[in-house]
């Protein structure tokens, strides 16, 4: 570049130690392109200067990109480059300092003349290394000098917890891996779609960057040099160290800002010739979430003291700094909280005993003490991280501060550090084991009532040997006989309870009374329990038919569907259920509804009880003990024994200017921001959305604190606190970069399901699609012009699965199709379940795993624990189903085992025994007397153990049976895989069609051909 650009002779003149001196010939090339680019930045937003026509081909394309990106940037780079106040690190500053100050001016004239036609300067800043990796290779072999020095300077910097960017160093490795995983995807895309070269190339260099943590403001200006000066370091670690430097000393030329590239160019060409069915897309190129849910590492690495993402996930960890920015983010802005999420062993949340000092919390905003608070005044005061109020430290809690301002007792304070394992493990384990042995637990109280057309209570006082049954048949005026003896202490009345349970099945053996006085029985149970609260399990076999709360058969009227009254079928018919739910919550009673009927049971009404009391709905349509028995046993046992927090309330606090405004899940709001949860357990998650109260946020960081106040099963009143911090960003691209697709999908699904309660299914689906499309369009607008994206949809790396999940969501049981596509009860129960699911389980339900089994089963050498080969998930696409194969399709709720048409008869015979020729959907899989069958059972057991929340029931599907069933697929319960299988073909078409339609709808000003690159590539 020295040769080409008069403004840059200084560069090669850098000390001989720099890589440039060592390998001048190679370096010239990068400089030639990057030099002008720097100029463009400084020049203030002009595209590539004429100097850019570089000798190498790659540059011609990538150069302009970089130029235009930086040109859109808001921060005038010159200010930064010239900033003399930047403290130079020992070795590398002097050389770099000089040249830098000169940057802005000399290249300026040349850039002004830049051919603007190439790339209009519209884009947002994205880090953009100018050259493809190939040209860098020679350089990277030379150890660049700047790499040595910066680490020192970084290390010497005092680690400050509260400054977001100080920890950015550590976060580097994540983006790296991220990129690499996604990289092959791009390559594939390029090969098969009509991608235009420039964007593709730009994806390549990005592996150097991935620096998402670096704030765009500081990093972007430098991006263009970095390409020229410093070869991409081959190792991740040094790079990470450098990143800080480069923010301060652009001259040292690090790749700091390449950050966003990666995701910015996950583009996907989707287009088809109008009117043709051919999607014009290779399904293999579509991104598939085969790794399952990947928690965003960026977030936790930027703020290493944040709580684990399993407890709290934000839909984007970049909090918009203004309302206008927030409004351009069309996706939900919020969080998904699973306060009691199950932790792997050794990672229990520590229990802190504050008995001596009282719980430490902020005087004003009531925030609990957490790792982000800062101690000042020699340890006598602490500053609240949420409202910045200076609080006194109570005498008993006082500890001196060390030289860096940290408390000397930090190691012993789990609430201030983020301890992963600890002293309290024993305590937690003890509590757990108590819960696991529910029958022996000394405080447990238990009671039973049965009901048909009358209500039967059971006196189980410990002095009795046999339980006494009392029948109340006056349903209009319920009274409870012997209120004190109906709910008895389990340990005292153990034998009576056992006797009762032994005799219960025989008591109603010959009962032909099919009436159900559900409402009165619920009221009676409420009266019995209202003194204590607790959990009420309702096992309901028919539609409530007597007394208050009786329900009518509804939902079989086809004419209602598609009208404005359709949603009425999905909300409770009788106000009784809502009122009862509110009363139950008031008295801390959680309701879990188990329904078994194959006929209409009105889950919409019954489920309301669970919805507002923090409970859950378990629905086993057409229950048969031979088939569903194991599932019920497992799920009931889990319901009874999993760690449960009682009488809880939950609140999420956040910093000034931001406020949580809406909450979604199974709970009742007791005040504007207080969720009442009579019972919480690890299988429940709650979503919430936040809004900006102020037009402009002035803080750098927003803190979130989830506090769950509850009674542990041991009787202690506890507060579980999860704290997280997230940076405030001023750039939409950064918000996308930090987005968490899982959390976004989770919030979106809850919003959609809520929408089905007030409007048509179609509207709910449309709202999901519309939001995704709007978001992608907004994203596209950031980069569209400069990359001539034509008919391509681009999406950020972080959200690359979002369209797929969105479409899967539209095909999920609560949302899919119309009347005939899912029975009303199944729809409602699936809706209730999805409203509670934690992120991971939801994603697995939406995009189940598909695993090929036959190869493993046939492998003679396979060892018992050799499950490695089974961990490979296949994309859910038709071409992945080999008719010779045996597949396991696991959505977290059931296993569908798919027998290929041409599966070897041996395998089928071994697994199914004599049933091998029977109708597969009627066969139950059981262990046979051969090794293969045992092996399969072991595999299934293993998978079940890895996901214990729900029991996976097996459904067998034989593809060769499909003829004749094709048309009425929905009526066959076990045809799920078939539907999905078809669905995925659909999915692709759907993706193409719907998204295209939407895009067209929203971009009618564009010409049609722009959207169909296959027809007109350079549109």
């Amino acid at each position, binding site marked *: 570049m020295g040769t080409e650009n008069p403004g840059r002779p200084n560069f090669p003149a850098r000390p001989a130690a720099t890589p440039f001196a060592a390998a001048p010939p190679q370096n010239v090339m990068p400089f030639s392109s990057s030099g002008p680019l720097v100029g463009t930045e400084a020049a203030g937003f002009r595209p590539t200067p004429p100097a850019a026509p570089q000798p190498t081909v790659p540059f011609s394309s990538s150069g302009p990109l970089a130029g235009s990106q930086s040109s859109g940037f808001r921060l005038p780079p010159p200010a930064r480059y010239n900033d003399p106040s930047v403290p130079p690190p020992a070795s590398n500053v002097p050389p770099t300092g000089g040249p830098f100050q000169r940057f802005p001016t000399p290249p300026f004239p040349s850039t002004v003349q830049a051919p603007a036609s190439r790339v209009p300067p519209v884009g947002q800043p994205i880090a953009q290394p100018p050259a493809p990796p190939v040209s860098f290779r020679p350089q990277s072999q030379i150890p660049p000098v700047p790499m040595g020095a910066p680490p020192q300077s970084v290390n010497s910097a005092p680690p400050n917890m509260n400054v977001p960017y100080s920890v950015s160093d550590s976060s580097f490795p994540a983006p790296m891996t991220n990129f690499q995983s996604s990289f092959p995807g791009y390559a594939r895309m390029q090969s098969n779609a009509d991608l235009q070269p420039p964007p593709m190339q730009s994806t390549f260099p990005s592996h150097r960057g991935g620096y998402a943590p670096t704030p765009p403001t500081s990093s972007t200006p430098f991006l263009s040099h970095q390409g020229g000066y410093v070869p991409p370091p081959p190792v991740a670690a040094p790079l990470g160290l450098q990143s800080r430097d480069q923010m301060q000393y652009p001259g040292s030329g690090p790749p700091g800002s390449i950050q966003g590239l990666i995701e910015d160019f996950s583009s996907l060409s989707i287009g088809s010739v109008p009117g043709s069915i051919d999607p014009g897309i290779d399904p293999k190129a579509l991104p598939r979430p085969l790794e399952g849910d990947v928690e965003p590492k960026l977030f936790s690495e930027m703020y290493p003291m944040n709580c684990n993402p399993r407890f709290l996930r934000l839909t984007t960890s970049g909090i918009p700094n203004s309302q206008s920015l927030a409004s351009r983010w069309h996706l939900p802005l919020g969080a998904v909280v699973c306060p009691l999420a199950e932790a792997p062993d050794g990672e229990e949340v520590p229990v802190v005993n504050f008995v001596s000092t009282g719980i430490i919390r902020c005087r004003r905003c009531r925030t609990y003490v957490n790792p982000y608070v800062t101690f000042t005044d020699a340890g006598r005061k602490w500053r609240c991280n949420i409202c910045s109020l200076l609080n006194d430290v109570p005498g008993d809690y006082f500890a001196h501060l060390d030289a860096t301002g940290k408390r000397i007792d930090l190691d012993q304070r789990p609430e201030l550090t983020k301890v992963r394992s600890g002293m309290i493990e024993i305590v937690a384990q003890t509590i757990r084991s108590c819960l696991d042995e529910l029958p022996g637990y000394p405080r447990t109280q238990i009671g039973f009532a049965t009901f048909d057309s009358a209500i039967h209570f059971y006196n189980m006082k410990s002095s009795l040997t046999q339980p006494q049954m009392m029948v109340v048949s006056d349903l209009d005026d319920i009274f409870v006989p012997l209120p004190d003896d109906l709910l008895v202490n389990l340990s005292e009345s153990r034998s009576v309870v056992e006797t009762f349970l032994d005799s219960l099945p025989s008591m109603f053996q010959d009962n032909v009374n099919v009436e159900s006085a559900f409402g009165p029985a619920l009221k009676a149970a409420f009266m019995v329990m209202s003194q204590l609260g607790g959990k009420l399990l309702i096992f309901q076999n028919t539609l409530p038919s007597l007394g208050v709360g009786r329900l009518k058969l509804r939902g079989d009227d086809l004419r209602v569907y598609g009208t404005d009254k359709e949603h009425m079928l999905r909300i409770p018919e009788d106000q009784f259920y*809502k009122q009862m739910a509110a009363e139950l919550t*008031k008295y801390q009673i959680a309701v879990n509804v188990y329904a078994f009927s194959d006929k209409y049971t009105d889950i919409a009404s019954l489920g309301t009880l669970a919805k507002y009391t923090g409970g859950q709905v378990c629905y086993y349509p057409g229950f048969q003990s031979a088939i569903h028995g194991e599932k019920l046993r497992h799920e009931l046992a889990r319901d009874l024994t999993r760690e449960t927090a009682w009488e809880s309330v939950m609140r999420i606090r956040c910093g000034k200017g931001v406020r949580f405004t*809406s909450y979604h899940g199974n709970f009742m709001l007791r005040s504007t921001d207080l969720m009442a949860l009579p019972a919480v357990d690890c299988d429940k998650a709650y979503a919430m959305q936040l809004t900006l109260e102020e037009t402009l946020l002035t803080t750098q960081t927003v803190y979130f604190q989830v506090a769950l106040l509850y009674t542990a099963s041991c009787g202690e009143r506890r507060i579980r606190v999860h704290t997280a911090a997230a940076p405030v960003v001023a750039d939409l691209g950064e918000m996308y970069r930090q987005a968490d697709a899982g959390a976004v999908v989770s919030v979106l699904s809850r919003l959609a399901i809520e929408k089905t309660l007030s409007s048509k299914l179609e509207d709910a689906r449309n709202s999901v699609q519309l939001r995704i499309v709007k978001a992608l369009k907004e994203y596209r607008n950031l980069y569209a012009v400069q990359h001539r994206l034509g008919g391509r949809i681009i999406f950020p790396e972080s959200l690359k699965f979002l369209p797929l999940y969105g479409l899967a969501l539209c095909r999920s049981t609560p949302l899919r199709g119309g009347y005939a596509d899912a029975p009303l009860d199944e729809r409602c129960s699936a809706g209730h379940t999805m409203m509670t699911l934690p992120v991971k389980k939801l994603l697995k339900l939406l995009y189940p795993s598909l695993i090929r089994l036959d190869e493993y089963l046939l492998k003679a050498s396979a060892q018992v624990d050799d499950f490695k080969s089974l961990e490979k998930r296949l994309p859910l696409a038709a071409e992945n189903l080999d008719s010779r194969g045996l597949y396991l399709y696991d959505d977290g709720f059931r296993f569908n085992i798919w027998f290929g048409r041409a599966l070897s008869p041996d395998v089928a015979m071994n697994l199914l025994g004599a049933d091998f020729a029977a109708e597969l959907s009627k066969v139950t899989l059981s262990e046979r007397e051969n090794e293969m069958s045992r092996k399969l059972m072991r595999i299934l057991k293993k998978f079940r153990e890895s996901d214990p929340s729900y029991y996976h029931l097996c459904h067998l599907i034989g593809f060769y049976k499909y003829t004749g069933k094709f048309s009425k697929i929905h009526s066959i319960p076990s045809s799920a895989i078939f539907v999905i299988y078809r669905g995925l073909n659909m999915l692709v078409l759907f993706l193409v069609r719907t998204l295209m339609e939407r895009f067209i709808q929203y971009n009618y000003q564009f010409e049609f051909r722009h959207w169909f690159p296959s027809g007109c590539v350079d549109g």
Partner: protein
Amino acid sequence: MMSMDLIFWIIAFLINLALMASTFYQIVILTDLEADYINIYDSATSINRIVLPEFIVQGVFCASFLLTLHWFMFLITVPVTCYHVMLFLKRQHLFDVTEAFRFLNAEKKFRLIKLGFYLVIFAIITGRLALSVFEFLSDADDATQLF
């Protein structure tokens, strides 16, 4: 005859006052709920207790204008009545305790608009009342002068 009119306007005035008081009371409760001064169960109970009586009184109010052939007043009050009937038929007239906070703002807005509406009617009724008082008094004067 004149005195009948006066009595009617006095009654209408009182009913309108009662309606305003009820609406205002509900607004106060909702505001308290928003500020967390009152718990949700109590607020729902106290609001729901007076919702139906208010609807009935408002219906009677409206009907009385129709029966006494006060067409203008009837037309003014009939939209609120229709709205009440619609809410009642849709079974949305009661304050939903389970979803209270989701609909809090809408409920408050609805009641504020209603209060404004009642205020307008209040102004009209006050005018009409003053007019009929004046007429009554002048009639009485006329009557005395007749003697």
